[in-house]
């Protein structure tokens, strides 16, 4: 693994401006500097409009910054083309979304297997890997169920299994409990806690202080600027 000893995420003076030079110009991020180490459990909080979604898109390599530099696992993302960024996402980042983003026509197992098509996993190994990932979130018994046949908490666990399928070093979760009641939300967060204990870097994007409290490091975004709150 490249740069095995260093931090997994290094962000230096990152800025993102939408519609620059026009009247609609929005400076969503201003000069954000942030370092997250391997195995860190981080939460990024902030109200809507604070820039936390923009930061998440940049960390997730879905977007490119206007200024500054972002290194993910030693790779400078700022300059990569769209295809290389896609492959970097595949290898380094597991996404968990508030609305689960499962494909309704596929079974739980097929949803978990879906990202493997874009990697180099031989066809014969995909099923076994997906079953193992489902087992790690306690849903091996539901492999053949469609998303509509699963509860919200179960759906989010399927989504987490899908995020883990390529064994990425970073798990990036955007309001993962936002669509769940507090009991199932707590179950999902317990799952993240366990994953972090196993050495995976977990980043939660949330507006909920109770969710953020699970993380060892807490950052707050306000008007496009970030600060770490020391508990």
């Amino acid at each position: 693994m490249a740069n095995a000893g260093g931090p997994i995420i290094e962000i230096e003076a990152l800025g993102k401006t939408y519609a620059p030079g026009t009247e609609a110009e929005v400076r969503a991020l201003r000069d954000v500097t942030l370092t997250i180490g391997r195995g860190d459990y981080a939460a990024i909080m902030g109200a809507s409009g604070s820039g936390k979604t923009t930061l998440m898109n940049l960390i997730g390599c879905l977007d490119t910054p206007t200024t500054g530099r972002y290194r993910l696992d030693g790779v400078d993302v700022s300059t990569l083309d769209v295809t290389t960024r896609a492959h970097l996402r595949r290898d380094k980042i597991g996404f968990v979304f508030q609305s689960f983003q499962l494909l309704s026509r596929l079974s739980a197992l097929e949803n978990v297997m879906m990202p493997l098509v874009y990697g180099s996993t031989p066809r014969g190994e995909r099923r076994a890997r997906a079953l193992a990932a489902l087992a790690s979130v306690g849903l091996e018994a539901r492999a053949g169920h469609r998303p509509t046949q699963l509860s919200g908490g179960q759906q989010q666990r399927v989504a987490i299994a899908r995020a883990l399928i390529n064994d990425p070093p970073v798990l990036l979760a955007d309001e993962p409990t936002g669509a769940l009641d507090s009991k199932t939300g707590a179950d999902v967060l317990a799952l993240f806690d366990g994953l972090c204990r196993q050495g995976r870097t977990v980043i939660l994007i949330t507006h909920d202080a109770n969710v953020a409290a699970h993380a060892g490091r807490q950052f707050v975004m306000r008007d496009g600027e970030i600060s770490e709150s020391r508990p």
Partner: protein
Amino acid sequence: MTPRDVVQLAMESLRGNLLRSTLTALGVIIGISAVIVMVAIGQGTKSELDRVMSSLGSNRLEVMSGAGRAGGARMGAGSMPTLTEGDAQAIKREIASVAYSSASVRMSAQAVAGNANWASTVLGVEADYFTINNWQLAGGDWFAARDYVGAAKSVLIGQTVRKNLFGDEDPIGRTIRIDRVPLRVAGVLAVKGQGGFGQDQDDVLFVPLATAKRRLPGGARIQGDFVQQITVGAASAESVGEAETAITELLRQRHRIQAAGQDDFQVRNLAEIIQTRSETTRLMSMLLAAVATISLIVGGIGIMNIMLVSVTERIREIGLRMAVGAGPLEIQLQFLAEAMAISLGGGAIGIALGVAGAYLAGAATALPVHLSPGVILLATGFSLATGLFFGYYPARKAAQLDPIEALRSE
């Protein structure tokens, strides 16, 4: 992503929308089956035409004695002989674009051999006649040069005549009587089959022109040097038209017809007549080609339309696939494969329907039908091209989506 993955992804999403996919393929199905029927009939007609043309002898012109006058009443073509053996010789001698010519007389006669008899046509011809008309020998010999000069009592017979007069026996050297004149069978001609107008070309007997005119009572009625018809072989297929003009000019001159006077003969270009007859089939083929083109375009637009709808419907799926690591090329391949699967599937059904349709059309209209593997290949190529062409834009549109926007959309 392996090619198998691409195909599997496409099939998965098409299965999810089976009815819609089938309806979308309908345009291609109709277009491809029209292509198959069109080409099958077109090729069938062409090979049938080629067969008829080669049995007729290509490059062939016929000069008929023109409408004569009996009192004030004009008689039909050939009713009064105006052509002479000398005309036939002059045509060959003086016109460069003419390679062969043969004067001929024709009569109906009852041919008798032993106990059998058969009503047929007797043609008195010159040696070039067989070359111009592409006759082949099945057995025996052609007439010798001295047979033509000496009015030998020899006859060549067609297969139909042989069958009816001799059955399975060998006719060579046997005697046939025509109007009580005994003629020795010199040879039997090879089968020629149906002519361009459906007549049996093998129901015929040939004698040297001199024999017909001097020895047979039927031929002797045509007096002096006159003949009913001159058959001309042009030097090449291209020079047929040129020869036609030259013959008309030469004969007008030889017959001393004034500039304002009417021809007392007719030059007929049989190949032209038969080609005109094939015009109908050509028109039908063109109509089918138009149908095929239009339905392939309409079918392609249908595919494009449905693929655009599909991209819009599945915009979040596309965003998700991009988030988990699909590059633009992989997204484009997936959607292109879906479009190609629709058009190739439609093409396969269209080929099956087209083959069935071609045979049905052949049976119903008696049009000749010819199906070659090339047609199937052509149809497959057309459906492939349709899918590629009309699937490219929607697939590209999907590939260019921004994953953030796509994930956020409802």
